[in-house]
């Protein structure tokens, strides 16, 4: 695991030494901020409502979650495969999974930085005399980070498939949107109530899973596990894809 930590540090440095991360952050922060201020106005100054709006209660949040992780992760494998650095990493004495994990953590960290802006807003509100409810706010940031981790893992698996970063971002965005719209499938297929597929689709409802706990300020092992497990699954997938690059 020290290998994963090393790669995490390297990836983090790589991310923040490149202008892309800063540009993404600046744009995302401005975007997020715009809707936050808008929601503060819309809710008549209700801090709590605005905070949950910012962290998962709104479509803007999901827009960012769908769009941003692919942009962050698109280069992580495809670019390295092109420049050959991947060969260096894959011949270094670390497990492939450590490589994936390090990169996943780095990408997730960037997203966490973005979501942490909510804490800044919270602090600002506190300074203005209306302190937010801190624990749910923290759990919201945590949850947003978990969701981002899931989508980063998806982005990584796709980045591992292709050598073209833009293609990776494109397909990852489509995959993310597809996963978010899974629940609509049951209406589309007109599944009978109680059919196993429908039940499964119900469990695969990312937005509901998220809003049922993190947005309302509850920490539910079910939902935390849901995101952890599927992040793990896609990391595993990315590892396998990475491995497949060796023999395909």
């Amino acid at each position, binding site marked *: 695991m020290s290998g994963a930590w090393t790669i995490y540090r390297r990836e983090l440095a790589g991310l923040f030494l490149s202008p892309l991360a800063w540009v993404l952050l600046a744009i995302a922060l401005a975007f997020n901020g715009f809707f936050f201020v808008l929601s503060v106005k819309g809710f008549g100054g209700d801090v*709590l409502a605005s905070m949950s709006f910012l962290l998962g209660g709104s479509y803007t949040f999901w827009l960012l979650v769908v769009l941003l992780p692919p942009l962050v992760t698109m280069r992580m494998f495809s670019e390295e495969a092109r420049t050959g650095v991947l060969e260096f990493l894959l011949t270094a004495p670390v497990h492939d999974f450590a490589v994936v994990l390090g990169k996943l953590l780095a990408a997730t960290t960037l997203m966490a930085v973005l979501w942490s802006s909510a804490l800044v807003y919270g602090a600002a509100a506190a300074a203005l005399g209306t302190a937010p409810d801190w624990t749910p706010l923290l759990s919201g940031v945590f949850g947003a980070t978990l969701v981002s981790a899931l989508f980063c893992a998806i982005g990584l698996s796709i980045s591992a498939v292709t050598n073209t970063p833009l293609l990776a971002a494109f397909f990852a965005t489509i995959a993310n949107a597809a996963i978010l719209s899974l629940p609509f499938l049951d209406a589309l297929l007109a599944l009978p109530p109680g059919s196993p597929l429908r039940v499964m689709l119900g469990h695969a409802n990312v937005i509901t899973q998220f809003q049922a706990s993190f947005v309302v300020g509850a920490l539910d092992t079910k939902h935390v596990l849901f995101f952890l497990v599927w992040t793990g699954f896609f990391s595993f997938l990315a590892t396998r894809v990475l491995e497949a690059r060796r023999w395909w």
Partner: protein
Amino acid sequence: MVVSPQDRSRGGTGAWSRWALSLQVFGVVALALLGAVVVTYLATLPALRRRFDLTAVGRNTLDTTLAELVEKLPEPVLVEVFFRPFDYPLTRVGAEAQGRMSELLHVARNQFPTQVKVREHDLTDVAKVSVRMKELDLEEDNVVVVTCGKQKVVLRLLRDIARVDPGNPLVESEPTLEAFRGEEALGMALLRVSIDETPRVLFTVGHGERDLFDLDKPVSLGKLHSALVADGLRADRWDPSASPEVPAETRVIAIVDPQQPFSASEVDTIVRFVESGGRLLVTTTGNERLFGASGSPEALLARFGIAARAGYVAQPIPDGFGGWRMGIEQCGTIVVAGAGLDRRHPITESLWRSEERVGLPNARALAPEGVRPQNSLLVDLLRSPDMSWRDLPQSGGRGDWRFDQRSEEGGPFALSMALAFPPEGLVDATEGERRAARVVALGAPDVLGNDILARNRDYVMNVFNWLSQRDYRLVIRPRETDRRVLDLANTNALTVLNVLAFGVLPGLCAVLGLVVAMSRRR
């Protein structure tokens, strides 16, 4: 775990081993997928699931009383939600009430995933929903139906769950949510469905009473019967002349509009039943010849110190020009609302609170008279308005619906009364409340008829629930809503947030990015 390509491919051709390997990897990934599904599933199991409420006000936790109720449920309850957007001007307030109820149910479901199942019906899917609504015997939407086993309680959004202040359209003040009592309503419903008993209500027959099963005639009781059954009561007929003893396990005896007199022994049986802690609903008779005679329901009521007066109570009808009209038949229907409802009695308290009206056609006036049982409590449930009068029959036998100050008495009159007293030989006062004898007198049997039951349903059901000892009263504190509001008008909060959102944070990123770019040039 490293997939070893060597083992598979030794001796195979390149292309073949590649596909074999791909298959193997697909297998592994499929296995991982299965594993993820299984863990996801396991995580949903209540035994393996923990939920922590992090909010300061416990937004994600049910009130302890409510939580206890849910925990004590004998079997899981199904809560079905039939919400549809309201029309203007209730759109906003309706949505708010729906939202809060949904959230409450959501909290309940998350806190007790095994005990509470919530199904939100999509009212846009008309065909499917109407089938289900018919099954549940629902006549309106925007209700929440709590089902547990055979028991079912219907909560109506804008009456049982939330109370709306209609606002004033003239000054363009929109309706607002005056009170949200979802917790309480849900608690009552849970309590009701969780008590697994079906009290028996017997309607007497053999004296020309209203037909309990007929659904077609306007005055029959068919709808009442199905309403009682739906509410968890067992309603049946009892012919005292055929079986003189009151059947065992009878909770309530109802005598609705008999046309023939009861025999003395029948009356005695019924009185004994009540005095030993039984419950009785008696309506006055519509048969003028029987009225007040021996063996009549009025004579029965007199045994409990309640007298029925001759004639029908009438009230003037507003003519739409600021005046009042009399002399028309509509005067014979008394509308009781507001102050006419007793605000403390369990039967009428909720009606009064939700500003409901009870309409009583052909109502007789009731009054306390004579000797009442010891320690009894007599309450006027429904009172006619001050402007009402007791319209006495003219020579033709019917009233003229005009107030004759000389011969006729002015209101208000009690139209329905509730009497409670401790049964004979009971000393323990605490036991007394639970086993008290209860009698409800109703001056207007038509209230129970098919035709207008729907209008007075709440009142009627409350009567039966009180009589059958199901008048649970819960006090549940409404869930706190944590509102922390920035004063946007008087502070520069928006400016600060704007600067933060558009200036400081993205600016910081830009500056840091520049610094990094510059420092990494060489």
